[in-house]
């Protein structure tokens, strides 16, 4: 960063407290890359910050434990990031590279290519109502706004369009659908991750609605493509019909 303000070091406290907005945090992370003193300071201040949670510790309701443990049983942990792959550098340094405002613009432009911006945000808001715990609105918007998000789009053969937004850092993809024809009675749009050998793994379902967004289940890391097929309600173990959408990711 060439535009570091002279007092940027002073942001370490606000950064450790999570009190910077996204743009400022991005700029400060850029500064951290070149300032070892700030890096060390942030590390120690973040630990001091974490101790603030001790002061407000409160026993959690028993049902939280139950729901967390049943939730994780349905989610596969991400693989470790491998340093040998340049595209998958560690999360913080990758985030530093591009200021978030730029990222916003880029992602916004990509998403606008398929769906009107208003629809996306409405969708993201609606997602909160329809999704399971693995696919909250926060997850969807986190993927769409991830610094490394890439977007591919395609036309759905039965009408409408769809975009798949993938963040390899987060190990998550989101499918945004726009103007999809309602699925015929007894059918549902099922989403698949396809690996390079063509093997399909179910990644969930497209929620009903003109504009919808859904966090795909599973890790896009090994997927070569994302496809959508019409399947009997409840879904199939493997695709049984010709895909209405297939995009390379």
């Amino acid at each position, binding site marked *: 960063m060439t535009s570091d303000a002279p007092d940027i070091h002073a942001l370490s*406290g606000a950064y450790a407290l999570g009190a*910077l907005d996204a743009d400022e945090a991005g700029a400060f992370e850029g500064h951290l890359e070149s300032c070892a003193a700030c890096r060390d300071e942030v590390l120690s201040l973040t630990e001091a910050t974490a101790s*603030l949670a001790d002061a*407000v510790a409160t026993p959690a309701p028993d049902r939280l434990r139950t729901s967390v443990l049943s939730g994780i049983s349905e989610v596969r942990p*991400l693989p470790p990031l491998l340093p040998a792959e340049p595209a998958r550098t560690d999360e913080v340094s990758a985030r530093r590279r591009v200021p978030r405002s730029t990222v916003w613009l880029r992602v916004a432009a990509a998403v606008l290519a398929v769906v009107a911006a208003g629809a996306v945000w409405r969708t993201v808001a609606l997602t909160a109502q329809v999704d399971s715990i*693995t696919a909250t609105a926060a997850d969807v918007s986190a993927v769409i706004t991830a610094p490394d998000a890439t977007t591919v789009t395609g036309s759905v053969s039965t009408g409408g369009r769809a975009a798949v937004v993938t963040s390899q850092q987060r190990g998550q993809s989101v499918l945004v659908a726009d103007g999809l024809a309602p699925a015929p009675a007894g059918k549902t749009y099922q989403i698949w991750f396809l690996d390079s050998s063509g093997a399909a793994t179910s990644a969930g379902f497209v929620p009903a609605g003109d504009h919808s967004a859904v966090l795909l289940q599973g890790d896009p890391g090994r997927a070569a493509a994302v496809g959508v097929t019409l399947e009997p309600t409840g879904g199939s173990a493997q695709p049984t019909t010709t895909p209405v959408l297939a995009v390379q990711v």
Partner: protein
Amino acid sequence: MQTDSSSSSGSVPGGDERAVLVTLLGRSSRGDEAAFAEVYDLTSARVYGLARRVVRDPAQAEEVAQEAYLEIWRQSARYDEARGNPLAWILTIVHRRAVDRVRSAESARERDTRYAIAGDGPDYDVVEEAVTATLETARVRKALTSLTMVQREAITLAYYGGYTHREVSELLDVPLGTVKTRMRDGLIRLRDTLGVEA
């Protein structure tokens, strides 16, 4: 440090918690759900307490805590010991989720209104009746009293209140530079008082 869950999985002596959590996160990253249950038991009171303190609404706090644990489970292979204490990593995830929740909810509202309704000042009294008293809780609360009032105010508004430093500057009607300094100096003092290892 005591295990801070209501469940009885035994206690972890202070210095060992870090090492235990590192091991448990490693096992979790390989899909070991029992290990993650131990992570939960060791951290849930702090995770839930923090979420509750920031979002305030108990039902939303549960949602935030659940989302955060799911993310911690998913990301467990990506925790890097070189990047700090595993507890700090966990709580950073929780705090970010909680803050996202209040900031998105609040953006639709007048935040100043809530501030005004809260009375003559922000709630920077960190002592809450409902909170469990553990040794560590008492130690941190005591350390907080070592801060100056203005440092404590800036830190608690940011961390527990979820306000940005700009908002804190507005709320307290002091220049942004002053707020940054109070936050940094306050955290340094807190760190030194608690003897946090870097």
